[in-house]
Each structure stands twice: as structure tokens, then as C-alpha cells.
């Protein structure tokens, strides 16, 4: 049986074990939903401008948190050792773990998106770049979450470590303000953040208004970030496994 099969089995087990718990979904949705509502109440005409950023934020937090939880939790209980003892490569384990985290982040973001469409009348101008943004962003953020988890032992350590990255990323990536409106000194920094390209893909998908005219450039750059994140995770994972 192929390693891909086994990666899917790993994901399925994680989904069964960790995602059945309703509070996880509720908490992941509560904060963005309230934020979105606050923006809508204050600015009913232009709330759509903020929607892609909030969806991307949900994706970022959902993926990184779930990835960190599935890995650090199993480190704590010693069950991660079972995967390390099984005839699966580290790539298979990382793929399995990131797929399940990705699914979680994408699912919560989709629920938020559906809520916005049904309750607030948000439209998807072109679904393809939107979905692409969710997939690529989900992949990148899950892998970053796994990397953080591989470097530490405890769940709270992983969360702390990730917050050092997540909040600056939110700040520099044109999440709450479009890139065009960012101050001149922040703009160049925005372009080194993977989040920027994910948000722009979501913008292209939702309103069609984006810094980029076509989804091609942000999609390709996101793909490059995904490849880099994969390399980083494999490196971090092998390092911790060798301790």
C-alpha cells in the first residue's frame, strides 16, 4: 500500500480523534464572526473590503492551531512514537498531519464564508481563485504550525511561538487594509509575507478588486511559499525525531 494511502489514514484518524469536538469549531468561528459583525455594523456599505482579510485570518489561526495541537498533543501522550515506529517516511507523517489541519482550517473558513454569503449577502465574483487561496493558504499555514510544534514540547509553547509569527503576519499582510493603502514603508515588507498573496487571492475571488490584476502571480508565489514551508517542516521534523 502506498505512502499516500497511509498519509490519508493518518489524516482520517486525526479528524476522528480531534475534530469531533464541537467547541473546536465554535471557538474558531466565534472570534472572526464577531469581528465581521462589528465591521458590518460600523460600515455596512464597505464591509466586503474586510471580508477576505478576516477569512484569511480565520484560515491562519485555524490551520496553525490545529497543526500544533495534533502534533504537540501526540508528543505529550507518547503516541507520536507510534507513527515514528511505523513504516512510514517523515514526508508521509507530515503530509497526513498537515492534510488534517488544512481540512480543519479550510472548513472553518468556508463556514464563515457561507455565513457571510447567506447572512450579509457577500458574493463570490470568481470562486476559482478563492478556493485556490484557501487551499494554498491552508497548506502553508498548516506546515508552519507543524514546524512550530516540531520545535517545542508543549501545546502552550507552540502557541506562544506561533503568536510571534501570526500577529506580525496579520499586521504586515494587508489583512485589514488593502495593500494600496498601506504606508509606503510597510509595502515592501508586505511582499515578503505569504499571507499577502493568500489575502489577494481571496480578494480576487470575492470582489475581484485586488492589487494583482490576475490570480497567476499570487498563485505562483503562494506555491513557492508552500514548497519552502514543506522543506522547512521536513527539516524541523527530522531534527526533532533525531533527538
Amino acid at each position, binding site marked *: *500500500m502506498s505512502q499516500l*494511502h*497511509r498519509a490519508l*489514514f*493518518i489524516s482520517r*484518524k486525526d479528524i476522528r*480523534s480531534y475534530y469531533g469536538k464541537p467547541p473546536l469549531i465554535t471557538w474558531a468561528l466565534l472570534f472572526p464572526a464577531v469581528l465581521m459583525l462589528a465591521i458590518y455594523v460600523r460600515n455596512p456599505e464597505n464591509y466586503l473590503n474586510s471580508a477576505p482579510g478576516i477569512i484569511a485570518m480565520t484560515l491562519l489561526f485555524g490551520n496553525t492551531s490545529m497543526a500544533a495541537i495534533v502534533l504537540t498533543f501526540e508528543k505529550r*501522550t*507518547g*503516541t507520536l*512514537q*507510534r*507513527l*515514528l*515506529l*511505523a*513504516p*512510514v*517516511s517523515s514526508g508521509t507523517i507530515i503530509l497526513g498531519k498537515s492534510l488534517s489541519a488544512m481540512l480543519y482550517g479550510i472548513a472553518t473558513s468556508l463556514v464563515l464564508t457561507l455565513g457571510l454569503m447567506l447572512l450579509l449577502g457577500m458574493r463570490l465574483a470568481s470562486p476559482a481563485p478563492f478556493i485556490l487561496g484557501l487551499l494554498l493558504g491552508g497548506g502553508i499555514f498548516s506546515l508552519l504550525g507543524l514546524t512550530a510544534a516540531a520545535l517545542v514540547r508543549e501545546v502552550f509553547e507552540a502557541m506562544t511561538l506561533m503568536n510571534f509569527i501570526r500577529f506580525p503576519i496579520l499586521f504586515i499582510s494587508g489583512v485589514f487594509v488593502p495593500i494600496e493603502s498601506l504606508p509606503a514603508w510597510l509595502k515592501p515588507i508586505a511582499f515578503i509575507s505569504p499571507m499577502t498573496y493568500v489575502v489577494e487571492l481571496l480578494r480576487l475571488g470575492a470582489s475581484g478588486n485586488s492589487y494583482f490584476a490576475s490570480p497567476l502571480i499570487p498563485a505562483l508565489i503562494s506555491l513557492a511559499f508552500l514548497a519552502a514551508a514543506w522543506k522547512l517542516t521536513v527539516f524541523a521534523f527530522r531534527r526533532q*525525531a*533525531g533527538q
Partner: protein
Amino acid sequence: MKTEHNLAAISVRGLRKNYKGVPALDGVTFDVKRGELLAYLGPNGAGKTTTINILSGLLPRDSGDLAVCGVDVAKAPVRVKQLIGVVPEESNLYPELTSRGNLLYVGELYGLPRAKRALIADQILDQFCLSDKSNMPFRTLSRGMKRRLTIAAALVHSPEVLFLDEPTAGLDVQSARQLRAHVRNINQRGTTVLLTTHNLLEASELCTRILILIKGRIVAEGSASEIAERLDKAKRLAVKLSGDVDEAQLREHCPSVMGARLEGDTFILDVIDTHSAIAEVVSFSEKRSLQIVHIRSATPSLEDTFVKILEEHDAGDGGPR
């Protein structure tokens, strides 16, 4: 899955491992033959778990050559993992999955076809008398059941070689006995077993050959009776006598006493044979009109014996045969 039969099940050559410069394994060499049930005996911290972790690909080695069924552990770790089953020191199945769920998941990870997974899970639950617990989450099982299920999980993919790291640690006498029966059974069905323990009785009861590991070195090797013979030489008596007497006099008048030292007001005697030593001490004290306040056997703990063997080894008259 059969590999060439003339190859040893496990072959370890000059294995070394340091933890931050402190040696845990200091040139370990041994073979385990196919179908053998070998005890890897040693006190706490000897390096037993380290050896198993390296053999099972969890830990990198510093130097040395390792092969399982002829497959190099360093070069083809995934292939080796398919050949071995490992029962770690701590029972570490998924607490949230049921007994059956755990076995099914292991079957998935080891690439068993779907129909076979269910069949084998039920078979193994039955074999380990856990059928009535098949739908209970692992975390709700008793310690002994957890241990059994962890062993069961290591057998799902019918490994050629099974590593058992202190399988009976923390079990009551009866559960430990049952578990040893399971282990014997597994071995009789053709699985090579490497079992670590610090329990000499367990090793001699279960295994045909014993390796003694101390401070990362193999210091003795042989059948249970050969090892027991060596340990027999290391009997000890604690004697408290009233009146004036010193170690030298005791040694002089009691030929069975090889060594004597005073611990507080009690003499600790290393003796060749307990019975004759007691008789000698009794007649010695009668002659000298001494009172025997107490006399009891103080046969050294396994750890003392290990240390003794280690000292012999350092002096150059012991060591692996």
C-alpha cells in the same frame, strides 16, 4: 514476508551512542538468531532502551553497524520498520481510540489490506483475551490490559522480530505470569523476540540466552544456567555478633567466607555457599563464646551482582564469551 534464512534476525556490531558526550552505549556487539527469545538484561540506565530505540530507527547511532534480517537499519529504515514490532517501555496506544480501533489503525499504518485488517484485529483481540474490551477506549483499560493490547498492536503486521521493552514492569504477579505465557507463545509461533528486563528470574524463566548489559557494555552472555552459575558465587550473609571480633578473624576461621566487611555493627560476608558459611560462623562463635545476635541471608541484589560482574569484567577475567 520471508527474507533469507541464513541471516541473523538481529545483528549489532560495535554500536556506540553518546548523549551530549556521555556514553550510553559503548561498543555493543551481539547477534540474535532467528526464532530465538533473547533476554537483554541490565540495571536501570544500562542502555537497554537506547539499544531498542536505535534498532527501531527512533534514534540515530554514533557508530556501529546494525541489521535486522539482513536489512541495514541506517540505509533502509522504512523497510526495517515493516519487519519489526516494537513494544515501548510505556504503553502508548491512542487513548481516545477503542482497543479494536487502535489495532485497525495500526493495520492501516502497516499497509494491511482492508479485509485483512478487521480479521486480524478480531483474531488478536481474541488471542490476548481482550475481545470483551474491543469497544472500550484504550484509556479506560487497566494497566495490565494496556500492556497486553500494546503487545497485541505490535503483532498486527506479523513482524519477523519483536522488541519488548520491559513488558512486565508494573504488573502484578499474576498478570506478569500471563504476559510471559503470551510472550512464550508468540516466540513459539516463530517470531524472534528481544526482551529487555532487569528481572533475572524473568529472563531465566523465559529466555534461552541472556545478555547482560551494564553501563553500555555487554559484560556477560550465556544460557540462563550459565549465568545463574556465575551469580550463585555471589551469595551474601549479614551477621551481627556480640563481643570482640574483626573481619580478618572471621575470614581466617570460616573457609566459606570469601570477603567480610563491617557495616555499622553488622558483618557483611561474601560467601561461597550459604549453608556451610552459616555452620562455620556458628561453630566459630561457639568456640569464641560469642553471641549471635542475628544472622540472615543478604544475597546481593541483581544490581550488586551486576556490579560484581562488571568488576570482574574490568579486571579482565570476565567478558563476553
